[in-house]
């Protein structure tokens, strides 16, 4: 069954600039976005800053009306059945705002429990459980104003889960969390899927998306430019494999020479201390390692390796295509 269904969603913003002579400018933030998320699926929405990810999410969670197009969450229309949608979804955004600074973590959770209709009998246990899950047990009586960014982010996540929503919208939830915390967060998100929740996630960390997402849509300038499993996306790009060669004291001429090998699409040089790492993006099924090494004759070569393109390689190519 489909949990989230977006059909040709569009959203235009009108902003005014100038103080005396006011001119209205229109920004087309989302330009005809369609996708389906199945129940129990973890769907990633990736894209550069300003691509329209947050705008898309806000339309799905009923905070913004679409300029045109329709969307349904668990079969409920996001414009017509607002209440039904709101009861079933959770929303977590990144950053340190969205909390009552003067209240303790516990009071923040109590407050939102009431707003989100958590049955009184279940509140205490639920809040305790969530505090434990996000690792804030023991600090719940402190005021939020004294919390670090990561602690606030964890509290946000607990807040988003209070009413045990069926569909979760996580807009850059891992921003500002330390590596250990981020790993725990990934485990938490994965465990949500295990209990049958549906998640829409946006993130700028490609390994996070690669590790977590069942399916990914890449959005650029308000339009979806690619969609599929992380594997599909990696195959979509023209890069077949990436060859990395460690060298010491390679010249520019040699680098240009490497770029001329058939099957090599691009050569990048990364300085790492004494050494320069040559990164060769190669066409599918091209065997270039031997040819490259023969052209580097006379240059001291360290380790040579071939790796599969990562999601990041694919992403960079997708969003920078013209």
């Amino acid at each position, binding site marked *: 069954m489909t949990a989230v269904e977006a059909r040709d969603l569009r959203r235009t*913003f*009108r902003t005014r600039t100038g103080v005396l002579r006011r001119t209205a400018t229109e920004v087309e933030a989302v330009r005809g976005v369609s996708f389906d998320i199945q129940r129990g699926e973890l769907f990633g929405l990736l894209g550069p800053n300003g691509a329209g990810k947050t705008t898309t999410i806000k339309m799905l*969670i*009923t*905070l*913004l*009306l679409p300029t045109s197009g329709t969307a349904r969450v668990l079969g409920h229309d996001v414009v017509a059945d607002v*209440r039904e949608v*709101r*009861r079933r979804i959770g*929303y977590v955004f990144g*950053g340190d*705002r*969205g*909390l*009552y*600074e*003067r*209240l303790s973590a516990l*009071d923040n959770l*109590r*407050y*939102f429990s*009431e*707003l*989100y*209709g958590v*049955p*009184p009998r279940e509140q205490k246990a639920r809040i305790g459980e969530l505090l434990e899950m996000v690792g804030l047990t023991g600090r719940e009586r402190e005021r939020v104003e004294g919390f670090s960014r990561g602690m606030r982010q964890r509290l946000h996540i607990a*807040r988003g889960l209070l009413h045990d929503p069926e569909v979760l919208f996580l807009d850059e939830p891992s921003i500002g969390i330390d590596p250990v915390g981020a790993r725990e967060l990934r485990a938490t998100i994965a465990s949500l899927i295990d209990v049958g929740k549906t998640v829409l996630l946006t993130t700028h960390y490609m390994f996070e998306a690669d590790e977590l997402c069942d399916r990914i849509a890449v959005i650029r300038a308000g339009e979806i430019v690619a969609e599929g499993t992380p594997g599909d996306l990696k195959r979509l790009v023209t890069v077949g494999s990436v060859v990395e060669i460690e060298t010491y004291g390679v010249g520019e001429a040699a680098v240009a020479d490497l770029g001329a090998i058939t099957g090599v699409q691009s050569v990048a040089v990364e300085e790492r201390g004494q050494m320069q790492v040559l990164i060769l993006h190669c066409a599918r099924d091209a065997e270039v390692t031997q040819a490259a090494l023969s052209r580097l004759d006379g240059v001291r070569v360290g380790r040579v390796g071939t790796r599969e393109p990562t999601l990041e390689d694919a992403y960079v190519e997708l969003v920078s295509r013209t």
Partner: protein
Amino acid sequence: MKQLLRQQLVCYRLQLKVITTSWFDGALAVFFPLMFATATLLIYGVRDDPEAMQFAGLGAAIMGMWTCQGVIASSLLTRERWAGTLELVVAAPTSMGRVLVPTTLALSTIGLYTVVATILWERWVFGLELRIESWPLFVTSVLASALTLAQFGFFLAVTAVRYRASWSLGAALEYPGWLLCGFVIPVATLPDWLHPLSWSIPTTWAMEAVRESAGGGSPWRDLLVCLVLGSAYAVLASFLGRQLVDSARRHATLALT
């Protein structure tokens, strides 16, 4: 029903906590009303007329409650927006009114405190002993003032946020309110064309009820009008609140970013 009551109670308690722990609001609630009362009594004191002092003393007591509610209520939603909590409140399946009413009730509670503080201040600093003929009626009238002011505050909260500078609107309402509600001068002395404006504010009637019960008269008619008027504002506000949220969703004004 039980759930609604509980929700109101929890939100009330927590919002009261938010307000009382905020330095600016605290100062506003604690010191300002005493300063206003001081100014009022000093001006009236010149005349050496016990009737006038009684009038000013009662007015100054309710005035603090008005200031506290007016200033904070009209910036309520703007503050929530700055804090980034407005979106979360709107995204909740609970209507805006159910969140705002407990908040303005919390403001009224602070207002009740300022009434007591002002009366004590008047007694200790100015030696002014207010003459209260019927304490039960007086207390009832003060409570009714607090309740209807909370309803009026709800109305202010949803109308003021329409304007970017809602905080200054609150400040702008404060002083005309002193005159219109009859805190420092009798409504009858205002120009005729202002009377309808005075009568449309529940606090004018509440003030009258307070004066009547202190003076030994019957406050019931004034109390009735004040409660009906207050409820009308609350109903209007919940309608406007829904419109406000719809408009915000259309124009993307819920979040700052």
